[in-house]
């Protein structure tokens, strides 16, 4: 394993961790709203969140490149805020990853929130728990498997991101050259041994993550001494 490969691995972990954190911060209120709202806009909002599932990454990458470029509205905004331009930067990849992995975080959370029985929240309300209190002490613990799934899928999906990063990253070691791009480069250059080391590692990682997820989120068996 070369130093460049280790740098790519560390960068990928940083990108996935940062994106997952932001996704949980943004995704939790969004999923809560989607689970509870009765507005007629709900199908539209849910569709927007799910878009990255059906859009080819090249479409997302292409539009992000244009939107975040010097002639795009987002690019003009970030420049006028003194943030510079997002393409070819770590920050740009974070923004892209948050958009790209959004459904993988919001959907499990939304399903978990929807599964919480209304009477659990009503019971808490009759005990004079405020909305915040109800959310933190009733909804969040009950939705714990949803949070685990959301975090794991958000992280893993960001690690597996390729097309969008390829289109807006610029392959800069240490700031945008993530694992999937490094593997692509090795394959393109005919360095199959190096490609195997990284690609094999990713396969093992993905399998380990998913097995862990399914083990952790397994429906609890009847506890000892419980129902017979």
């Amino acid at each position, binding site marked *: 394993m070369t130093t460049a490969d280790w740098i790519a691995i560390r960068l990928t972990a940083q990108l996935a961790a940062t994106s997952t954190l932001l996704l949980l911060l943004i995704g939790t209120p969004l999923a809560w709203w989607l689970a509870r709202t009765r507005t007629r806009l709900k199908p539209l909002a849910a569709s927007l969140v799910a878009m990255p599932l059906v859009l080819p990454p090249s479409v997302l990458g292409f539009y992000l*490149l*244009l939107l*975040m*470029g*010097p*002639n795009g509205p987002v690019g003009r905004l970030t420049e006028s805020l003194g943030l*510079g*331009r997002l*393409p*070819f930067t770590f920050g740009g990849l974070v923004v892209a990853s948050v958009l790209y992995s959004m459904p993988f975080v919001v959907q499990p959370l939304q399903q978990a929130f929807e599964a919480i029985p209304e009477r659990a929240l009503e019971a808490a309300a009759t005990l004079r728990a405020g909305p915040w209190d109800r959310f933190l002490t009733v909804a969040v613990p009950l939705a714990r498997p949803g949070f685990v799934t959301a975090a794991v899928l958000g992280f893993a999906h960001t690690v597996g991101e390729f097309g969008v990063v*390829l*289109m*807006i990253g*610029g*392959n*800069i070691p240490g700031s945008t050259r993530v694992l999937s791009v490094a593997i*692509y*480069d090795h*394959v*393109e*250059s*005919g360095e199959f041994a190096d490609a195997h080391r990284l690609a094999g590692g990713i396969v093992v990682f993905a399998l380990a993550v998913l097995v862990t997820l399914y083990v952790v989120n397994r429906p609890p068996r009847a506890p000892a001494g419980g129902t017979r």
Partner: protein
Amino acid sequence: MKLRPLFSLIGGLLLAAVPAAHADEVAVAVAANFAGPLARIGEGFTAATGHTLKISSGATGMFYSQITAGAPFEVLVAADDETPKKLVAEGKAVNGSNFTYAIGKLVLWSAKPDFVDAQGGVLAHGTFSHIAIANPKIAPYGQAGLEVIKARGLSDALTPKLVTAESIAQAYQFVASGNAELGFVALSQVAVPGKPVVGSYWLVPANLYGQIRQDAVLLKAGEKKAGAAALLTYLKSAPALAVIEAYGYSH
């Protein structure tokens, strides 16, 4: 008589669907930078021989991996001379069939008018934050761009500003969208026949970088196909060379 174009279109489609005797459909893998010219050459080729082309465009390195894995391409029109040589050596291409069909010309290009001067002085004196280049490990044009930067003694100054694209097609896209102020691309991308030149460019003198030889080769899958061999012959013909030159290559 608005229907007449429709009828002639249908007629044309029918003609195309009923191939002439012994007309082949040749599966060609072509380097992205030569896809445009090849499509133009293909028109003349079909008119002259009756054979048609099924063109897949992409990165030469990717095609190499696909061909070694058994992809059904019959001709490879590559962006370098190494890949065809390697395929011949590995027995995936027909011995002695590789030849240089075009020599690429490198330009330093910006989408902004007057940004790049005719001597390329912008490299040393210009204010820019990103310069796009195709991945030098993979793309000969990227390698050539690095050589130019080195020849100008600017490696230390410019390395932090380099953004690497997977191909010159993507390098072009980085510059065209304005995300990189300038970049090294092929003349064939900037000076397209029949289209006005966008922005400004410096045609890099050929002595600043190693020759970019683009070779074509007959692959094993096309060995017994008359149309595939005919295409390689046609690439050396006067009408094909005229198109190649018009698109900014020498030969």
